């Protein structure tokens, strides 16, 4: 520790020279901690611009759509009324990593944001396996530019409304436009344009294989369509089996490739929405980790700046105040409670990993035998790189953090009169609480499991989807509007069967055929 304090700057005013000096210091420290980052591109913007950036989900270039306008109005309204402050920062997973600083921020905020975004998030984007697998930081900006241009072109050619309706339909399904297990090929703008032309000419020239009527030789591995026994179908017209042969979880991909009536440009737009959904897919799965990691590092780096005498007490106090507000977790019965604060949870877990490494207790030795007493820098790096929220919580949520946050599990079963406390933060409950919290962050649990099982290519061209209920949870009301959108894309009737324990509990149709059938129950 330095006894002589030589702060780079004091007070709350900043200028570019000061920011530059702080960045140099932060970069040095980051280097010392071996944080591997993309180059940073720090952009100073106004409040108004921040609201714009917000409205477009942080994408620096976005195509036009009314939903972004809605988002903008909502943000603007909330901000004007003072219901919410704007986030101080926004960071984009790209190479170079773009971070926005708001001009209204004080010096402390700017330094904090640089530490948080430019070194915390940035290294997360570069290191975490999901981002490494699913996104291409170098090409995303190019792709966004391409998407915006392409969609603008379509608007010119086919009218704003036609494009808007198509985008509405795609947005409704965008969470189901991701490949969960297969790594997509990298996308880059030039490549994309070239391939798009290719696809278009190819599609124009070819008869869609799906709809051709010349029978193929039957293939044994395809399941036989229900209710079509060989006696009813002596000519073997249905023996080709069902299409697709496997259920499809990527609905938009299936639509893009198979929807019978979409024009080539429409398929292309489906593809754009799908690609962007894929780009955001890792972010939706790593909220806790990502924010936790960034908070952990801004906390560490800011404290180092202080220890090295580069900031004064005033700035440090302001920082601590702001930091504790960010990682504050209101209790479930507090009026401010709105779910678990990912910043708080993530920060607590990463901080605790460090504690377990540095000063392990007996409990830690029992729970984390490999980690207790190991070098902390390697352990947090390992945790950051190889997990997503679900598995991260499952692996690293320690009894101490559960005790600190006083986590408890409530089971809400509609067949019971009352809620039941399933487990609390005690010896008996740790594992169950942890398990349940991890599941809470699993996308597969958060989103209903809906898959395409059959496109009736020989009959009425209808599309059938299955929904497998999780713990008897039915689909929400929004199912009909979504079905309508799906029907718009597919162009023929759409069915959705909801399964609970292998039994259909409810069938949905679009267009609605009389009353919907209430099977089972």
């Amino acid at each position, binding site marked *: 520790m330095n006894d002589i304090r030589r702060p780079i700057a004091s007070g709350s005013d900043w200028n*570019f020279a000061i920011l530059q000096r702080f960045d140099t210091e932060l970069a040095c420290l980051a280097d010392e901690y071996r944080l591997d980052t993309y180059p940073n591109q720090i952009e100073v913007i106004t409040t108004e611009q921040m609201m714009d950036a917000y409205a477009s989900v942080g994408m620096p270039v976005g195509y036009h759509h*009314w939903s972004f306008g809605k988002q*903008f109005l909502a943000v603007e309204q909330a901000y004007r009324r003072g219901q919410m402050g704007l986030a101080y920062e926004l960071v984009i997973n790209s190479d170079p990593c773009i971070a926005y600083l708001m001009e209204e921020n004080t010096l402390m905020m700017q330094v904090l944001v640089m530490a948080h975004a430019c070194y915390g998030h940035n290294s997360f984007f570069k290191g975490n396996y999901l981002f490494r697998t699913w996104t291409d930081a170098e090409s995303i900006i190019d792709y966004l530019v391409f998407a915006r241009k392409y969609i603008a072109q379509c608007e010119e050619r086919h009218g704003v409304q036609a494009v808007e309706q198509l985008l*509405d339909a795609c947005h409704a399904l965008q969470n189901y436009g991701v490949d969960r297990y297969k790594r997509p090929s990298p996308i880059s703008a030039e490549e994309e344009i070239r391939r798009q032309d290719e696809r278009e000419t190819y599609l124009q020239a070819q008869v869609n294989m799906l709809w051709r009527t010349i029978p193929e030789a039957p293939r044994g591995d395809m399941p036989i369509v229900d209710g079509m026994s060989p006696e009813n179908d002596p000519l073997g017209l249905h023996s080709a089996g069902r299409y697709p042969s496997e259920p499809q979880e990527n609905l938009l991909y299936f639509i893009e490739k198979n929807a019978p009536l979409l024009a080539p440009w429409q398929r292309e737009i489906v593809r754009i929405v799908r690609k962007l959904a894929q780009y955001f897919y890792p972010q939706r799965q790593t909220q806790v980790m990502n924010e936790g990691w960034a908070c952990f590092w801004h906390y560490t780096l800011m404290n180092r700046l202080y220890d090295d005498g580069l900031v004064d007490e005033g700035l440090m106090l302001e920082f601590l105040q702001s930091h504790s507000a960010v990682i504050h977790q209101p209790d*479930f019965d507090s009026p401010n409670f709105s779910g678990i604060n990912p910043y708080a949870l993530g920060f607590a877990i990463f901080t605790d990993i460090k504690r377990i490494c540095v000063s392990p207790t007996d409990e830690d030795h029992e729970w984390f035998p490999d980690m207790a007493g190991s070098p902390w820098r390697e352990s947090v790096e390992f945790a950051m790189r190889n997990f997503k929220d679900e598995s991260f919580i499952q692996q690293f949520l320690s009894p101490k953090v559960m005790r600190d946050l006083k*986590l408890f599990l409530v089971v809400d079963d*509609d067949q019971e009169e009352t809620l039941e406390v399933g487990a609390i933060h005690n010896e008996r409950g740790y594992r169950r609480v942890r398990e349940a919290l991890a599941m809470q962050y699993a996308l597969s649990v958060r989103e209903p499991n809906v898959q395409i099982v059959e496109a009736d290519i020989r009959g009425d061209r209808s599309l059938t989807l299955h929904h497998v209920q999780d713990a008897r949870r039915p689909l929400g009301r929004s199912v009909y509007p979504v079905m309508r959108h799906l029907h718009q894309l597919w162009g023929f009737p759409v069915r959705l069967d909801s399964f609970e324990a292998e039994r259909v509990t409810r069938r949905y149709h679009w267009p609605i055929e009389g009353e919907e059938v209430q099977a089972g129950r």
Partner: protein
Amino acid sequence: MTYFIDRRPNAKHKSAVNRQRFLERYRKHIKRSVEESVNRRSITDMERGEKISIPTKDISEPVFQHGQGGARSIVAPGNKEFLEGDRIQRPKGQGGQGGGQGDASNQGEGMDEFAFTLSREEFLEFVFDGLELPHLQRKPLKSLDEVKMVRAGLSRDGVPARISITRSMREAYARRIALRAPIRRALKAAQEALQAEERKDSVLRNPARITELKAEIERLEKRLESIPFIDTYDLRYHQLSAQPQPSSQAVIFCVMDVSGSMTQNHKDIAKRFFLLLYLFLEKHYEKVELVFVRHHTAAREVNEEEFFYSRETGGTIVSSALRLVDKIIEARYPPGKWNLYVAQASDGDNWDDDSDVCRELLLKKLMPQLQYFAYVEITPHEHQSLWQEYEAVAGVFSERFAMRQIVEAGDIYPVFRELFKRRLSQRQ
């Protein structure tokens, strides 16, 4: 490696297009809100934006979601007293959706309604959307009779009537000071010299010098006196210059029947109609004046307050009001300079013989001068003779004479739109 970029000078409003798209898409909803608020607002209250709420369900972007029901587990922080196996009453109102999902709905209003604010401009745009002023004639800007003389400083010459006394006196005062000062100085010097001479011993005195000084003093005093108190040189005149007047000015004659049969409710409806007309014209003309004429058997020009809120009883003679309007036009609003509008509200009652008189008055005297005559009849009942006579007028001046029936407040806006709807056919 870090680059700093100052983006502040870059364009704001990147989302302007998206915002516009949103407003366009929900035009119908927004218009409905705007129409409601037009009916609700008071007369002084139109000149601001409006908070628009759209039901969230109309605006939501649907995705597959879990619905209510089934079993779900929620992990929540801040356990104080619960032990494993405790049973808790389900919180009321929301189906036990407490945590985890991040959309806990205790934020009050925010959840069912999507609210945002239209600026005043946007609000009025929506109010007047699709409406066009009928027969708007912009009188030419620089025609001679529309020149107004305005004061434009001072000048040295002019007619005596425009003399500026203060400025002239100030000039004279200054001139007097300036001209007198050197003479005064010389006079003082001469007087001092004379005194010095006189104080000398008589032997040493120079009589010739004394005579000379005395003559000098006398001459100087004469000169002082001869400086005039005011001179033609001092006179200043107000100067006028001719300034072209903005010509687009309009006057609306609000004519209302206040006989016993008109209830306050009728008047409120009429008020909204006049108000809309005013706002509408105000947007198109640089200056809009309102003249309130109310009548029962006799017509009177009154102020706004009295027009809408004082009570009268008696029979109804509509022609009295039309005559008064004609008189006022003649006296104060020459049709060459003003765009004249008449808006009449009535419950349709009139003295039987009077309706033909009204027709004649309108056909012969009023209509040729008016830009537009709008008549609304606020009644759920059958039309009476006045309506029929007016129909005859409408037949002759179909482009500039409009009449509609209103039953309740909600009808006003549609009627208003109807009256002033864009006349596309004429445009082409």
